[in-house]
């Protein structure tokens, strides 16, 4: 992977080779440049960005879910968990990436640890809020009909918490897609790489616009996908609106 990006070499366009290239005249958007660099630069960066985000969300979700399920049962754990996750969330991201390099190294582990730590507050809060929003009489009915706590959790509490959980996922995913653009500071991956390169390209803005636009588009698409997922998973929440 590193080799691929390194092989792509300097992404500053070679003006001499393309005398008629729009790179000379049109600094804002040069389709030829995008075409030429899609394969070697943009597409790999996008793929890396998706992987960085997906890993962070998957691990962050698993940790936040475990913490929220525990705190849901043991309410004393809510405040300490909020305190810690809020603290993690407030650390300036550039600083956190740099801080992790010393103990972990400038690698994917450091990148993911930092990204995961920014998902925890959002996901923990939303999962917990969702679980807490389940009406008492619904839990009472579940217990009275002979569900175990685990059955009530899986059949009743988690499904009813889904809208809140997915709302949390949406915020977390968009946040991490944006944050992952600065992973390049410690680990040469993601859409942050072409964005950073573009900043050194003087008047030529195509690379900045295209890579930045891809990050935005990725965030919007991921958000839309989660909205779609929620519609599929919670048909009952729309039934309420219809009635």
């Amino acid at each position, binding site marked *: 992977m590193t080799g691929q990006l390194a092989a792509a070499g300097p992404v500053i366009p070679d003006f001499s080779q393309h005398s008629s290239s729009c790179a000379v005249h049109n600094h804002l958007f040069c389709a030829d440049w995008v075409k030429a660099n899609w394969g070697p630069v943009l597409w790999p960066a996008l793929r890396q960005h998706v992987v960085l985000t997906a890993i962070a969300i998957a691990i962050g979700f698993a940790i936040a879910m475990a913490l929220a399920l525990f705190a849901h049962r043991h309410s004393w754990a809510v405040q300490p968990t909020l305190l810690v996750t809020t603290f993690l969330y407030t650390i300036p991201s550039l600083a956190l990436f740099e801080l992790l390099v010393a103990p972990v190294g400038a690698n994917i582990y450091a990148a993911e640890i930092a990204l995961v730590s920014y998902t925890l507050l959002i996901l923990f809060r939303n999962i917990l809020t969702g679980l807490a929003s389940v009406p008492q009489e*619904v*839990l009472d*009915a579940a217990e*009275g009909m002979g569900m175990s706590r685990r059955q009530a959790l899986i059949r009743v509490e988690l499904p*009813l918490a889904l809208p809140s959980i997915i709302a949390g996922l949406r915020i977390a995913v968009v946040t991490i897609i944006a944050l992952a653009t600065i992973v390049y500071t410690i680990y040469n991956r993601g859409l942050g790489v072409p964005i950073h390169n573009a900043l050194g390209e003087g008047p030529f803005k195509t690379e900045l616009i295209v890579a930045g636009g891809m990050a935005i588009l990725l965030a919007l698409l991921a958000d839309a996908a989660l909205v779609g997922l929620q519609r599929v998973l919670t048909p009952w929440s729309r039934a309420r609106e219809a009635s």
Partner: protein
Amino acid sequence: MSRENTAHLEGLSPYPYPTRGHRQAAELELRHVSKRYPGQREAAIGDLSFTVPAGEVCVLVGPSGSGKTTAMRLINRMVPLSGGEILLGGRSVLDREPRELRREIGYVIQQVGLFPHETVAENIATVPRLLGWPKDRVRMRVRELLELIGLDPAEMSGRYPAQLSGGQRQRVGVARALAADPPLMLMDEPFGAIDPINRTKLQDEFLALQAKVNKTVVFVTHDIDEAIKMGDRIAILREGGMLAQYDTPKAILARPADDFVAQFVGADRGIKRLSLTRLEEIELLPPDGAAPASRRLPGRASVKDALSVLLTAHGEALAVVDDEDRVTGLLTLSHLERLIAKDSDGEQRQVLASAGEAGS
């Protein structure tokens, strides 16, 4: 143990498919039951003993703080017992695994507690699914129950609770509690959140349903009128979970055990007794064929209804008719007075309240 219980649960609904038959209701017996919460000086339930015969509706009624809901929740062990014993079908509930016990006891609460994320059919199927019934059997049972509570299966099965009216939700709640054909039903103010007109309708529906399914029912309410209407027996609780009186509605209205009960059932208990007696149950004047009475009431109507009609009849007689509109007897105000007087004189258990009590 669990195998034996499962066999018991399947009881009268022989595999593979349910029949229209219903499982035998079970007798419920509370023996010196008490509940004391830690850190509280007063017991929530003092020393409660009574027996509900199989197939009867027992209403627990009392002012707030009398522990009626607590008493109900002791039965399915949602509140742990502090002392005494509760027997369901002759077997102590303490010998049962709580979740297994609860799947065998229908449970209806005031706020219904339908699962908002499940359809009507899925809600009703809750306990059968917990019991692991095969899919076909569950589907048939759901359809059967929807028909039983008067909701069209084709139209209602796929709806979510948010798409139902309050009354429909309550009906589905009752159907859900009946799903596994439990020998006992617990109902905690099931119609408390429904407006008066629909409440009356739901009460009547439930009584009609109960006549079909014949469950043992423990019904909690704070409304003495509802208790009188719904109960085969009424347990009146006073504060501290003490049993003030346990008897049939008629007996409680005729002979309140003490001032507390007399006050709780209300000064109009004489009138309430009249509402418990149907015209076809009393001794009417023979239909003499003379002047046909313009005012008619069916034999199913209560004596209270008849009194109301007679009071505005200017001395005219009231004709009591059967289902084919044939006059079975006549009733006049003076005859009703005589019946009431006779009832209050005699020690025999007569059906009418005393005129003195009713008037005072």
